[in-house]
């Protein structure tokens, strides 16, 4: 039966129990991403819109049986929930690290116009402290960052090391009580 029917027909054939199962699945996926579970009904509806509107294109095997279609719907729900989490949480890291964003470091290393000598000292202090506190595996990344002309942290030994160097630099910046305001006023 399911091999010849469209996705819309499969959607219409869902029983109330199966629909509830999908809504509960949506609830669990939202909780997994730390999002409010009360949006589960909205998440389910958003997923069905993709099927009804034809923006989702199920394969033949997705419509082969009721169980296959339910699994296909779970995939869509998971996809939409993950998209929501990316959209709604895109700046979480900035706020989670005590509101010390990458801008602090950018200002620290890329604002020489106010006081060139003060800037040079700050930069030297930052890299000296970084080398003192960083484990050996981060040293190639720190060296490359110091040489980098545009002050971006280059990826030498892996993106994880870039992230760790950035975190460490932010920590040092906070210890030095460095803020963009204090730097620009110096």
């Amino acid at each position, binding site marked *: 039966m399911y091999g010849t029917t469209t996705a819309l027909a499969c959607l219409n054939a869902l029983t109330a129990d199966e629909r509830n199962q999908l809504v509960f699945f949506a609830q669990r996926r939202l*909780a997994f991403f*730390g*999002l*409010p579970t009360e949006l589960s009904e909205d998440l389910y509806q958003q997923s069905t819109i993709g099927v009804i509107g034809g923006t989702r294109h199920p394969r033949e095997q997705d419509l082969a049986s009721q169980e296959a279609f339910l699994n296909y719907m779970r995939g869509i729900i998971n996809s939409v929930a993950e998209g929501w989490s990316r*959209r*709604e*949480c895109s700046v*979480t890291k900035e706020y*989670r690290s005590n509101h010390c964003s990458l801008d602090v470091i950018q200002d620290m290393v890329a604002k020489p116009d106010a006081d060139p000598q003060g800037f040079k000292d700050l930069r030297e202090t930052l890299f000296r402290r970084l080398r003192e506190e960083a484990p050996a595996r981060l040293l190639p990344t720190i060296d490359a960052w110091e040489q980098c002309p545009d002050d971006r942290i280059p990826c030498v030994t892996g993106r994880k090391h870039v992230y760790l160097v950035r975190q460490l630099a932010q920590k040092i910046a906070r210890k030095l009580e460095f803020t963009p305001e204090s730097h620009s006023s110096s």
Partner: protein
Amino acid sequence: MTWGEPGRRHQARLYWNAKELPTRSLTFEQVLIHEEDTLGTFPHQPAFARVTEVGKFYPFSAYLLHLYAQKEAGRDVLEVLTELSRLLPQKRTESPITGKLNAVLEKDGFRVTNRITEPARALLDIGWVSADSDFRFFVGILEVKTDGPRLKAQWVLPGLIGINHLLQGEFQKRSASLADCLAEEYAKQVIAELQPQKHGKQTLHVRNHDCPGLPERVNS
């Protein structure tokens, strides 16, 4: 509240898309503010912006968090939300679960609004309700596990970006630790229901069907 250049005064107006979001499911994160009504320090976040013909709209919750983070707002956040909740549609009829959190938290309006129980953990949807309104503000998802006779709790990450970060701070101020946030009776019930956390490394053996001559890969 108005601000801006003379002749171009901004007003803090709140918007929500009544067509896109039915009122019954309106959450505070779906309340928007127009870009012209934001202060100049608000960072442009393309992922946040709802771009329309009349300009960009941003989640008001994220904007409020920004104001507090930049020290441009300093009022008690619970008082602010109490005032805000009077402006929002009062369509919430289902009552949040009471008696699950400790007395201090419950008294100050924190509630468990939903619970998902799994064999090894419980996921509690924590909300905040003001004294004179039914509108619920999302605080976070609290993951509760048992470690023998004790409870362990932590917020599920990444969570939303918005006022819930401040509410989580208020929540933690009122509880010695996250594990102590539950009412005594409910904590006992959770410990009895949940399986204790398994320690040690879990390994997943993946049989290499394509190359039977090669040893099995072990992902740890």
